């Protein structure tokens, strides 16, 4: 498997008056061309920060404190802003959480498409216009809306327009930061279907961040679960979804209803994620974990390989396997491939 993007030991810290706080802690991941990788986790677990660090869009007080982001053979962490500019958008584009704020409110769509293309050396007005109309139609928006301002579009259309903009150069990788979270469930689903369809049609890879595990699980090839700045589980979507190997993933799955399985009470995860400036000494999930045992509070678990899935839980350590009382409930009744 060739890799398009390889993130190694990437760490990001926010500088605060009380010293740096690590929001992304030694994250490793690789994305193959055309792959759809989902990243899920609660708010504040560092998933958006991770995306911004990969795209080199961090702003003070956040900064990359270590690791590398190798994209198309170049380490973006060490590249200068000038050296990065040609790669941006041509090879790697970003779709942000709220299209409401991510489009310049005082410029028409046509102008925002045009200055993107001009920034990458496309000067021919007719070519710019033609390409802008093409990508708009790709996402199902009438070309007449090129003359519209962002506020004249509905939330769903704005989000589509953003995706259209992200596809101007048909990049190899599109980074998406919760692009659907501002939409209602019906619009969410149709947008997801469209993203998947475009991805299959154009062949770009997607790095998709969301807090909605059920949404992404129908579309992603692999799933990465983050908690308190760390990867806690990473594997193929089907495996993670059917047999979550980490109690946190299990908790996320139990927090939304299954459509076809047996009726059962929904279980939330008690408590809130720990403050990143005062992390528990052992496993970061230990204070909220329903299956924790004494060693969890003192020992920091590494990532264990469980049948191809990485899981950061001491239960998978042979030394503590006696604690594994199989509290996990299987969700095999659910279908993952509803697409």
């Amino acid at each position, binding site marked *: 498997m060739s890799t398009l993007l390889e993130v190694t030991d990437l760490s990001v810290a926010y500088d605060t008056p009380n010293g740096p706080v690590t929001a992304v802690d030694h994250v490793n991941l690789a994305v193959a061309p055309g792959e759809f990788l989902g990243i899920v986790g609660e708010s504040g677990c560092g998933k958006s920060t991770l995306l911004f660090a990969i795209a080199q*869009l961090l*702003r003070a007080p956040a900064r990359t404190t270590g690791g590398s982001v190798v994209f198309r053979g170049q380490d973006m962490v060490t590249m200068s802003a000038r050296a990065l500019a040609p790669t*941006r958008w041509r090879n790697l584009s970003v779709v942000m959480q709220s299209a409401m704020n991510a*489009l310049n*409110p*005082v*410029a028409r769509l046509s102008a925002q498409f045009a200055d993107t293309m001009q*920034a990458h050396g496309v000067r021919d007005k007719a070519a710019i216009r033609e390409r802008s109309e093409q990508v708009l139609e790709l996402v199902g928006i009438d070309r007449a809306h090129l003359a519209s301002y962002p*506020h004249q579009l509905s939330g769903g259309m704005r989000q589509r327009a953003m995706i259209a903009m992200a596809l101007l150069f048909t990049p190899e990788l599109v980074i998406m930061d919760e692009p659907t979270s501002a939409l209602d469930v019906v619009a969410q689903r149709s947008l997801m279907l469209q993203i998947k369809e475009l991805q299959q049609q154009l062949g770009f890879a997607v790095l998709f961040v969301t807090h909605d595990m059920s949404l992404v699980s129908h579309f992603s090839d692999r799933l990465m679960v983050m908690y308190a700045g760390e990867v806690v589980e990473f594997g193929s979507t089907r495996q993670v979804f059917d047999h979550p190997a980490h109690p946190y993933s299990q908790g996320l799955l139990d927090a939304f209803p299954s459509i076809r399985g047996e009726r059962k009470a929904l279980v939330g995860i008690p408590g809130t994620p720990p403050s990143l400036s005062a992390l528990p000494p052992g496993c970061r999930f230990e204070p909220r974990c329903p299956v924790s045992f004494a060693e969890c509070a003192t020992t920091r678990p590494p990532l264990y390989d469980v049948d191809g899935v990485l899981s950061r839980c001491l239960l998978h350590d042979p030394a503590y396997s006696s604690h594994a009382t199989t509290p996990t409930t299987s969700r095999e009744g659910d279908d993952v491939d509803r697409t």
Partner: protein
Amino acid sequence: MRFILRRLGFFVVTLWVALTVNFFVPRLMPGNPAEAMMARYKGRVNPEALKALEVAFGLDTQKPLLVQYVEYLGNTLTGHFGISLTFFPTQVGKVVLQALPWTLGLVGLTTVIAFVVGTLIGTIGGWRRNGIVDSILPPVFVITSALPYFWVGLILILVFSLGTNGALPNDGGYDPILDAGWNGAFIVDVLKHAVLPSVSILLISIGGWILTMRNNVVTTLAEDYITMARAKGIPDRKIMIHYAARNAVLPNLSGFAMSLGFVVSGSILVEYTFNYPGVGYMLLSAVNNQDYPLMQALFVLITVTVLVAVLISDFLTAWLDPRVRTAS
């Protein structure tokens, strides 16, 4: 189109209300300003002037109030404000027209320069927060903006006029021994006379623009569309101007229009300090001499310019901010 018509309609209604207030306020005051003036000038005012005064004030007591009101409106709209007492027997309109260019030139130009330069410095300061520009200019100009006009004027006179043995003039708008007109010597002289007054206005008014613009830019930089623009690989300079400044300047436009509206009333203190022959100086002498026709004309003029400035600001905002156009 509907937007323009609505704003114009609003302008006309406001103007009418302002003129009406200007008409009724003098007659709500006890006594009669025209008679008060007669008493003060002890007959030095000829009956013709008194008549003009009465017409201007609508004090023709024989006529019914409504007729006076209509006459007043007609006179005001055609620019007949009567005869000035300070500059007797010149028509008020003429007197005002003499002073207006000086104020428009000095205060008007300086206000525009202050806004443009302040916005520019503010943009750079906000863009490179805690950079060199940001750590020096905003604090300095915020301090100068708190100083009184006349004090700054006096210091400037002391240092750059008296201290340089009169290299820069400190009195009046031009040297009376020169030929007034479009010749090089006169224009240079007018510019020289304008340096110190305009510098003192700049020193005081620029700080506000710098500070507000800087803060607007800092807030705007946190917006997603700035991050987006960076992700798109758009050059920094273009992001600063087309994305950050373009959005950050919007809240400042109405403030700018308001300050344009007050250009005509002049910077009374500055014009007084430098004996500058502008509207502010004239308003001051009109008040000192109880020159009611001149005062009334100046008040109408100030009202109209404020209204026009607000109108311009509305159009400007609509032009720069598409959201305003459709919201109304």
